[in-house]
């Protein structure tokens, strides 16, 4: 009962006059209603993009990776850029659901479900890139350590690329389990309310027979807490390991110890931007403004300005170290090729989008402005895509041999593949928004009495009185 009372001075997490049933109605309602026109339009566009992506990938597999504009100098181009970008986007979901749960941040309840879904879809998109980059993709299972017919030949456990295999697959599995175990009670709510037989049957399967027994809740809470405890270092480890793909190499521009924390901060930065993009649209279309409040948006903008600034400091540290280390190759990579070379434009896009523009969120008015937030979220995502592009391409396109210096622009199958992952992501998200409870119903009900607008108003008169009196009145009214 420790969540019984919270100061009225804090902004409520749920606006409006709500009781438990109203919460169910508001969040489950859209699942039971027919989707609007916008939903069909969005889903159609997404599916078309997805199909174009499938075509691009089929083309690439049929002809080989030669159809991509990668060459001997730039062996990683859009594919690995996109991989790191999508993985990074996934991170905000786990951050919101796990780290904020551990830190007892009540505001996560409004946004965690959608953010976790975003994580899963983003990791699905990310995983595609290294797999298709293998070229002979039917050999992809070679990355797994299994007893094979080629003698006792095993994978190289020293390789960061193999660490990636373990990191991404573990991350995906754990996120999926975390997400789905949280969904069980809400699926049960949909099932118990279902008016049609088909809905009752399908959500009956999805809810695994959840009833809400006290013992089950007790175990469920224990499970969520431990999964959060496991996911918190996991999310940090995943992007750290992704950064090892670069940091353990000896390429100037990659070989830096700052990469792990810098990548993690960047991942959270871009992830929160994507959460903003999705939730601003979702709350508008599904009418969930009272659950995903301005308070939520402001809180996430605070995370964006914090992580954006960390990323900014990392960029400047890199520049400083390139000069201070006295390494000529580092210096050239950073000052001549990155900031001023033929691909320099990408560096300045990155700097503008990631370091300068998020600083508007120092102002409260901007943090609480939906339009500004929406535009900023897109700018940040563009900026973070360019960060990965800058790291990969501007470190590779000019190596130690001037004779192999090159330039890089993507071919249509590379662009098509990238667009295809957008198709996959948004197809999944549209289906999620229609058929899943986009907000964790049970968790909202859990914080409703302490942080709902109407309950807060009721509590005003008790603000200066004794807690026990309040509890007593509640029990006997």
């Amino acid at each position, binding site marked *: *009962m*420790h969540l019984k009372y919270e100061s009225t001075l804090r902004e409520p997490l749920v606006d409006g006059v709500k*009781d*438990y*049933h109203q919460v*169910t109605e508001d969040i489950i309602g859209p699942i039971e209603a027919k989707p609007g026109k916008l939903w069909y339009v969005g889903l159609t566009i997404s599916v078309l993009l997805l199909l174009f992506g499938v075509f691009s990938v089929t083309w690439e597999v049929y002809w080989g990776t030669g159809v991509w504009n990668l060459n001997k100098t730039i062996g990683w181009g859009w594919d690995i850029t996109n991989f790191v970008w999508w993985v990074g986007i996934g991170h905000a979901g786990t951050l919101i659901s796990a780290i904020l749960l551990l830190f007892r941040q009540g505001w996560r309840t409004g946004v965690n479900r959608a953010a976790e879904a975003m994580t899963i879809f983003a990791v699905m998109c990310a995983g595609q890139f290294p797999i298709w980059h293998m070229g002979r993709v039917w050999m992809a299972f070679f990355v797994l350590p299994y007893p094979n017919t080629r*003698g*006792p*030949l*095993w994978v*190289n*456990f*020293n390789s*960061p690329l*193999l*660490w990636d295999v*373990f*990191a991404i697959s*573990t991350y995906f*599995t*754990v996120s999926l*389990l*975390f997400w789905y*175990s949280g969904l069980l*009670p809400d699926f049960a*709510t949909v*099932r*118990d*309310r279902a008016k049609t037989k088909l809905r009752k049957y399908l959500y*009956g*399967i999805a809810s*695994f*027979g*959840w*009833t*809400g*027994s*006290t*013992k*089950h*809740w*007790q*175990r*469920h809470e*224990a*499970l969520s807490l*431990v*999964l959060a405890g*496991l996911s918190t*270092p*996991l999310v940090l*480890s995943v992007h750290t*390991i992704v950064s*090892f793909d670069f940091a353990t190499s000896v390429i100037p521009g990659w070989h830096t110890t700052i990469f792990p924390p810098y990548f993690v901060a960047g991942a959270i930065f871009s992830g929160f931007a994507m959460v903003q993009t999705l939730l601003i649209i979702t709350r508008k279309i599904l009418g969930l403004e009272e659950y995903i409040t301005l308070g939520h948006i402001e809180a996430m903008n605070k995370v964006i300005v914090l992580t954006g600034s960390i990323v900014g400091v990392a960029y400047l540290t890199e520049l400083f170290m390139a000069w201070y280390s006295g390494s000529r190759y580092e210096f050239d990579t950073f000052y001549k090729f990155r900031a001023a070379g033929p691909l320099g434009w990408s560096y300045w896009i990155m700097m503008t989008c990631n370091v300068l523009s998020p600083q508007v969120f120092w102002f409260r008015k901007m943090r609480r402005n939906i339009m500004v937030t929406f535009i900023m979220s897109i700018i940040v995502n563009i900026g973070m895509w360019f960060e990965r592009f800058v790291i990969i391409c501007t470190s590779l396109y000019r190596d130690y041999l001037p004779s192999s210096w090159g330039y890089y622009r993507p071919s249509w199958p590379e662009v098509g593949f990238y667009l295809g992952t957008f198709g996959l992501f948004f197809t999944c998200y549209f289906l999620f928004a229609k058929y899943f409870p986009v907000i964790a119903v*049970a968790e909202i*009900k*859990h914080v409703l009495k302490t942080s709902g607008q109407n309950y807060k108003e009721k509590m005003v008169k008790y603000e200066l009185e004794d807690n026990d009196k309040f*509890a007593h009145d*509640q*029990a006997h009214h």
Partner: protein
Amino acid sequence: MAVKKFVVGSFDDEAVLFPAVKKVRSAGYKIHDVYTPFPVHGLDHAMGLRETSLHTAGFIYGITGTTTALSFMSWVFTTDWPMNIGGKPHFPLPAFIPITFELTVLFAAVGMVMTFMYLCQLAPFVKKHVFHPRQSDDLFVMVIELTEKTRAEEVKAYLDSVGAKEINEQEVEAGWWLGRFDKEDKLFSQRTTPVNA
């Protein structure tokens, strides 16, 4: 299959539910379960349930993952196929850390979720008896099992006195999904002597 009888009382506020649970327990009635739409903190203690050991299970699974990863990679690189990869040592412990960590988390998470599913008897296609359709919406449903010593009317009256809004009686077929019915000796329908005769 055997059938059991229950008295089902619904409460609409957890603040009323708590004292009711305590009173019903001290009156000596057997609470089969309380179904709530969200986790009500402290309800497990009020009902006298013991703490879950799921954490301990998770720890054991995690340790299993750590040992599996470390011993497997060490065996591969030192015994089964000591390959020279760029002149690196055969037992590079620091390079084993990332995979060891990932497998620790993976084993712990997967193990815990499966244990959770097993303990709660949850799986796709499992159907359990729902005592009140609103127990997952806005009602807190207390289910009291009728035994040889209890009379339905008495329990109903008592539930009413402690603040239940809606009270009814339900007969439920005892299957494995309803707890440990089939393992218990005295089932309601097998009773030979009338209640409180």
